């Protein structure tokens, strides 16, 4: 699986409150409306600055806090297929796998806003087309890749009628 896109960079400890604020709690059953507020408190106007295929880049502990699955859901709805971070909070990581949003753990210090990036998932390679530098990362475990390649946990269960990892 290979992907390329432009980087939108954030810092450490981006909470699910920053990804989608609790003040839009009442829009959770209206995902298209909720998605308009993606990352609003971390970067106002974010939703108008991104194009489908772009990547979110972040520091450590991305997605910390609340278990709200609406956070990775609306990232994916915005057309962002990958979040690349130094580390992820575990519930966010798990939710991402379940939804088919790709979480990649790698040192992001040298990646900058606007960089064009290429990801080779299975071989664990991230290339920065701006600097020409290639960074290696550990791909998600075989168990996680299985759920991802089935299209997320719901599709996985529908395929096997049980958890088959």
């Amino acid at each position, binding site marked *: 699986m290979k992907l390329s896109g432009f980087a939108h960079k954030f810092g450490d400890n981006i909470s699910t409150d*920053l990804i989608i604020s609790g003040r839009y709690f009442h829009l959770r059953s209206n995902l298209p409306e909720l998605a308009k507020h993606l990352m609003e408190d971390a970067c106002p106007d974010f939703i108008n600055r991104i194009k489908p295929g772009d990547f979110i880049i972040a520091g450590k*502990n991305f997605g910390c806090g609340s278990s709200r699955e609406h956070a990775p859901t609306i990232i994916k709805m915005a057309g962002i297929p990958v979040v690349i971070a130094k580390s992820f909070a575990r519930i966010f990581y798990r939710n991402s796998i379940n939804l088919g949003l790709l979480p990649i753990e790698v040192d992001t210090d040298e990646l900058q806003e606007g960089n064009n990036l290429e990801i080779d998932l299975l071989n664990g390679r991230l290339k920065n087309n701006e600097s020409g530098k290639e960074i290696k990362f550990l791909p998600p475990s075989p168990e996680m890749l299985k759920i991802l390649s089935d299209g997320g946990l719901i599709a996985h269960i529908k395929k096997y009628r049980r958890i088959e990892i």
Partner: protein
Amino acid sequence: MGKTITEKIISDHTQAKVKAGSFVVVSVDSALLQDGTGPLCVRKLSELDLQVLQSPKKCAIFLDHASPSPKMELSNDHKLLRDFARDKGFYLSNIGEGICHQRMAESFIAPGEIVVGADSHTCTGGALGAFATGMGSTDIAVAIGLGYTWLKVPPVIKVELKGRLSVGVYSKDIILHLIGKIGADGAGYKCLEFSGETISCLSMEDRLCISNMAVEAGAKAGIMPSDDITLEFLKKQGRENEWKGLSADINAGYESEIEIDCSSLIPQIASPHSVDNISEVKEKEGTKIDQILIGTCTNGRLSDLRVAAEILKGKKAKTRLLILPASAFVYLEAIKEGIIEALLSAGAVILPPGCGPCVGIHQGILGDGEICLSTANRNFKGRMGNPNAEIYLSSPATAAASALTGTITDPRRFF
């Protein structure tokens, strides 16, 4: 090598060999949903299209986050969840009954169980010696549909608590201190297991506060041993038959060990906008506060309200003061003890049990530039509904002392 509590509980729920890092499928004893994550879970469950649900023996749905509903969209979400609970025969905890984690501890969770919930603070249940962990709506849909879930067996960090707490210092100060020490991701993908002589002196209410905040260090669970205090807690609920003793083996293997000398601990506070931004309260004294929130699933229990009332009785708060009991049961006991009267007379607003202000949904949303001191578990930017406001986190005693002066105040001045 012996086993940790985590390994014992997970081993009891799977056929697979349990060792840190391995993926296992485990049966689930309890599952919980709330009104923020429940509607999505219901939709995911219908996508699964299962003919028959193999649900865990205890499934409970809580209308606690927007309680009572402030908007028609949320009223419709509540309606969906009420219909779903009725249709599936699940327990429905209606508005005002209490916050899911408090209600789970009061009526459902037993030692040795695996509890999963579509709420990150599901880890609160670890105080009863259960493996309790938060997940997303899809995971809980699968757990409700199939009766099991997958886990990556976490390595365990042993937290050894030594010595007795001094006057004016509480379990909230222990957990804030720990999070400050290891950081907001210090226990990422791992479990915290608490032990040591301090634990045997802590009530179940104190323990629930500590386990509640395990996730703020990134932990999958924050587990306490199940002992006489657990038994007493269950006895009061008429559930003593659900008790079993549980502790780690002496030769259990840990990823690392942390020791905290609780006897030398003094009141702690988290400053904006991160829970691991910890200092001693005395370093922040004098910071002006606009609003105080005492309550939530972290510190909305009877002993929390009692200490606030002891400090505030016969005096007047200089800030806006919100009181948020964790459950109707707590609220009623607080009325019987005269706690509510003392707090009301001090100028407090008593809110219905729920999560509203802590999550920024309703009731106590901050204005631009305002500062709140809260006894909740999170102070992220925007958490209480306004990204231009600031939140500090402390114990109920620090919060009550600060309400009296209008500025951050070390509660030891009042003892």
